[in-house]
């Protein structure tokens, strides 16, 4: 489903070259649940951004469902992002002022789909947020906010869920609950890639990628 061929990401700072990724090869099959671990600065986030079409590799190729990202136009990349990819971040990044329903419906708005209300409502129910539907983000607990963010990531029915430190701001109980949700989603066929510092949780994933200094070591 995702094929990654020797990708490198190089940032230039003056004359100095910084390697965020030094050449990564791997392939990810549909329905896999992968945890990416590694210290800060090892390239986990960059790797997720590249798979999520938010960033492009300096060298190498990324092929998602047969589409080579390198040769794709910006417009096509946006469509890939809208149709196939859902993102979850450590700091949730819900839009203040919008209620929970509106926050979750936002990606659907951007992808110009219609008649989505029922689906959003069932997502809200699945994630146990029905009682919060009209609340604003600041009224929610961290765990609830992250569940809203997951619901938002799922709103466009993506094939891949990318989560960058999703439990970084949560306590153990909530972290486990989030992982539980990931596992349930994975059982329904969703491909999930989670970058995390939390090794205990990473162990629960069927497959673990270990990053170190921009390289995939295991």
């Amino acid at each position, binding site marked *: 489903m995702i094929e990654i061929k020797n990708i490198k990401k190089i940032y230039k700072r003056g004359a100095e070259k910084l390697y965020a990724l030094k050449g990564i090869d791997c392939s990810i099959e549909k329905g896999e649940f992968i945890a990416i671990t590694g210290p800060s600065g090892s390239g986990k986030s960059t790797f997720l951004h590249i798979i999520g079409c938010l960033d492009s590799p300096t060298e190498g190729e990324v092929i998602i469902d047969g589409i080579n990202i390198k040769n794709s136009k910006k*417009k096509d990349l946006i469509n890939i992002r809208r149709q196939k990819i859902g993102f979850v*971040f450590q700091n949730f990044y819900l839009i203040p002022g919008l209620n929970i329903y*509106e926050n979750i419906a936002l990606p659907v708005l951007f*992808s110009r789909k219609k008649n989505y209300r029922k689906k959003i409502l069932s997502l809200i129910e699945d994630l146990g947020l029905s009682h919060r539907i009209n609340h604003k983000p600041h009224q929610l607990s961290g765990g609830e906010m992250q569940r809203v963010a997951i619901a938002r990531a799922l709103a466009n029915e993506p094939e891949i869920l990318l989560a960058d430190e999703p439990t*970084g701001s949560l306590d153990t109980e909530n972290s486990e609950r989030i992982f539980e949700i990931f596992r349930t989603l994975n059982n329904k066929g969703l491909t999930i890639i989670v970058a995390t510092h939390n090794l205990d949780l990473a162990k629960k994933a069927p497959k673990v990628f270990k990053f170190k200094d921009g390289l995939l070591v295991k």
Partner: protein
Amino acid sequence: MTFLKLYINSLLRNKIRTLLTLIGISASIAILFSIFSFNRGFERNIKKETEKTGLHFMIVPSGCPHEVASLILHGAVSPKFLDMDITEKLRSFREIELISPIIVTQAPNIKYDRIDILYGIEFSILKILKPYWDIEGNIPTNDYEIIIGSDIAEHYKIKIGDTLNYKGVQFRVSGIVKRTFSQEDAYVYISLKSLQKLLNKEGKASAIGIRIKNIGDLNKITEDISNKIPGIQIVTMSQVVNSLSVMATSAKILSLSIAIIAIIISAVGVMNSILTSVFERTSEIGIMRAIGASKFDIFRIIIMENILLSILGGVIGILFSVISSTVIEKFLKKFLFYLPSGKLITFEFHIALVCLIFSLFIGVVSGLYPAYRASKINPIEVIKT
């Protein structure tokens, strides 16, 4: 969930800032709307007022410029005089229905230590000349009676039956003209004969107003009169209207420049406000990009916030200037030398539309840069975990 909801949400996030920006736009659009309608009202009311005189053209001494000729009708003093013999010659034109000689002059009012404007007319045709006047008391029946405008009456605290003294002659006030909201309120109306005597200009007039039976004959008759009577000049009412408008041109240009400056300032205000809110929301905008918004989506969201704010400000501004038109008119009247009577600022749909288009323009122009900046926000730079 709609885009509209998204725009409104952003504007409501910082209510004070949005309110302050709104006040800026409303004020500038209110100025623009007031000036546009004032100018419209100015021309409309000059026309109405000129039509109200019941005259079709004026005969003035030749060499008298149009501007002065126009003002004579509205009370300015001209140093040149016509010979009243002309009226005899004019009577031979069958097309003429009414001949009204006029003298306008200034005379000291020693008792009140002021200079009054004396307007000499034949009282016998007063009803025809000023049909819209509402007179308290009576029209003078002899040459030693006068009627006065309401401003004079108020200022000097004069009642009917009191007297005013000009150049040693006593005149009894027989009537007071109720407020017309024009210069007429400040005039003293005196019989033509008495004024001629006071000035030692017997048999003279500043101007002669003419009404003809059939307006279709206007061109023919003015040509005939100019050919047959030497030493005169004819100013038609449309020329009067024109020259009065031309005289107001500089005031119009000045006021419009003020409006344009106000608009530029408010546009900068809107831009500043939206730009600040873009900077505050960088991570939010970044996340929108990450969850599927294109650069264009972001551009559109920001520029629509601007447009919404500007149009709302425009609507408020228009409403404000319609509601407070009386105060604004009083203010503007201080700066203009001549104003026709009647209400000048009224709601006119197409002026409102022009002002709304201006607000839209403010919104688009001031929104371009903030929207461009927002669309350049790179999601991976703002989303740090």
